[in-house]
């Protein structure tokens, strides 16, 4: 099977070479830079008050955004699957807009409605509320798009069976629907959280990047690069990298568990 082996080698060789050059090598350079300053130096950088403030801010806003997404994203997915109204196809298409829209445009857009010139009189520019708004904008599709297919495939007979056995609407949701869509919600929430932790473009304009107040980790890294502090930038970046890997791992575990569950 020589032809077979050659083509396998080709696709595998291309994949690993490309991944190494584009992804692995730069990540290695980042890790190397952060070890350059030693464990002590690393700790000094990440425990500096400004870095700590940025990391804390990033984490609590991202957690808030993930939780809001879990609830409102699930409701939106539910409405898109189970409800019927005119213009549903349009609403469904619009869900992907934050994905297609450049993040810098998203930030500018939010500033137009919730900034100093707000037509509705709400001005949250340069506040932590603005951070949450921007993160909500860019993470909107994740939970909706992971829960939606699960709801679509969910056997409605299961719910009918639950109701015929005397379960109320709420009990049916809690005991039958929810356990089935939970893995979808979890992986959507994890993706949204990852996106929120790393978000940069949409925050640049609307938050004003005020240290200790509206400066999240990605903005902190960016300002360190601008001021030539490579080691400082790299140290905080490694923390974000670790969070990303941990979340991917968590999503992988959820996925593994659910597919095993499916096989029964």
């Amino acid at each position: 099977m020589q032809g077979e082996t050659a083509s396998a080698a080709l696709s595998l060789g291309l994949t690993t070479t490309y991944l190494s050059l584009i992804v692995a090598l730069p990540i290695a350079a980042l890790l190397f830079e952060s070890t350059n300053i030693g464990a002590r130096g690393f700790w000094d950088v990440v425990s500096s008050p400004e870095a700590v403030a940025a990391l804390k801010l990033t984490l609590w806003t991202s957690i808030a955004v993930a939780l809001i997404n879990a609830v409102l994203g699930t409701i939106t997915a539910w409405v898109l699957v189970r409800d019927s109204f005119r213009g549903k196809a349009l609403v469904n298409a619009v869900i992907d807009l934050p994905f297609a829209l450049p993040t810098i445009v998203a930030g500018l857009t939010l500033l137009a409605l919730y900034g100093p010139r707000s037509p509705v009189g709400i001005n949250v520019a340069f506040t932590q509320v603005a951070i949450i708004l921007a993160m909500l904008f860019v993470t909107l599709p994740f939970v909706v798009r992971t829960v939606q297919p699960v709801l679509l495939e969910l056997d409605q007979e299961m719910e009918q069976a639950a109701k015929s056995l005397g379960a109320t609407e709420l009990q049916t949701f809690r005991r039958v629907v929810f356990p089935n869509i939970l893995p979808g919600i979890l992986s959507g929430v994890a993706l949204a959280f990852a996106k929120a932790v790393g978000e940069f473009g949409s925050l640049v304009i609307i938050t004003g990047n005020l240290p200790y107040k509206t400066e999240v980790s990605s903005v902190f890294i960016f300002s360190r690069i601008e001021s030539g502090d490579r080691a400082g930038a790299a140290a905080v970046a490694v923390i974000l990298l670790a969070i990303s890997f941990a979340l991917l791992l968590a999503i992988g575990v959820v996925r593994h568990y659910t597919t095993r569950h499916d096989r029964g």
Partner: protein
Amino acid sequence: MSIVVKGVSKRFNDFPALDDVSLDVETGSLTALLGPSGSGKSTLLRVIAGLEQPDEGEVVIFGDDATGLAPQKRGVGFVFQHYAAFKHMTVYDNIAFGLTIRKRPKAEIESRVGELLELVQLKPFAHRYPAQLSGGQRQRMALARALAVEPKVLLLDEPFGALDARVRAELREWLRRLHEEVHVTTVFVTHDQEEAMQVADRIAVMNKGRIEQVGGPRDLYEHPETEFVMSFVGPVNRVGDTWVRPHDLELSAEPSDGADEAMIERIVHLGFEVRVELTRADGEKLWAQVTRDRCEELELEEGQIVYLRPQHERVFSAAT
């Protein structure tokens, strides 16, 4: 010999799918590989086709060692259980695929595909897509596609497994007739002993990665060499070490020498055939197969005591 398989073994992780299997397939024959799922029959077929590589042993096709040869160079036609129809091509293009790959002249392709469409009775459907065909039609298309390149041997993997009972019966009959017409050496895999006996002229019974016995349908039924073959190629009663087929269990209303007493538990009427479920005096349960006429003649009733006299009973040595 068309196909010679010599000492082939194949493991998947820890599971021995084939264990030192040897098989000769005569030119022009229609051979069935019969066995339960997991017996290795599909793996053996895929090894012959080159879709799996054996860990040990060799495959010779028409005198040439094909063991290391890629499937596209073996000159075999393969028909898959789930058809493997090319969904984005019409029936015509599906059948023409092998010829197009070989860059045959257009006119030749047209006439050859036309012939095959005729042969598999799909002429009116030439320009439909597989999704617009029934299961039986798709399987006939897959057969025509495999035949188009005039393979030296035709291999079919559970060709009728995914079809409903009626279509399956029709296609069995049709495959038998097709083989008489085309006469290409054919090997097919099945788990259905009735299908194997109805279609094939030679059957290799497989179990746990080994071939238990090879022979004609009647030969296997009447002279099984192992317990497994005895129980797999037809219904059977086992009483202690003795095996007897239900229609070889003679019933009579009167006691006689060497006959066992038994009580009728249940009588099931299946038209011409009647199944009589019995419990022997020693508690053993078994069943007998009698004709409707015989049942009436004996005036059999549930709860009645009858006398059993086994014919052609068999005892197998402990080797199996």
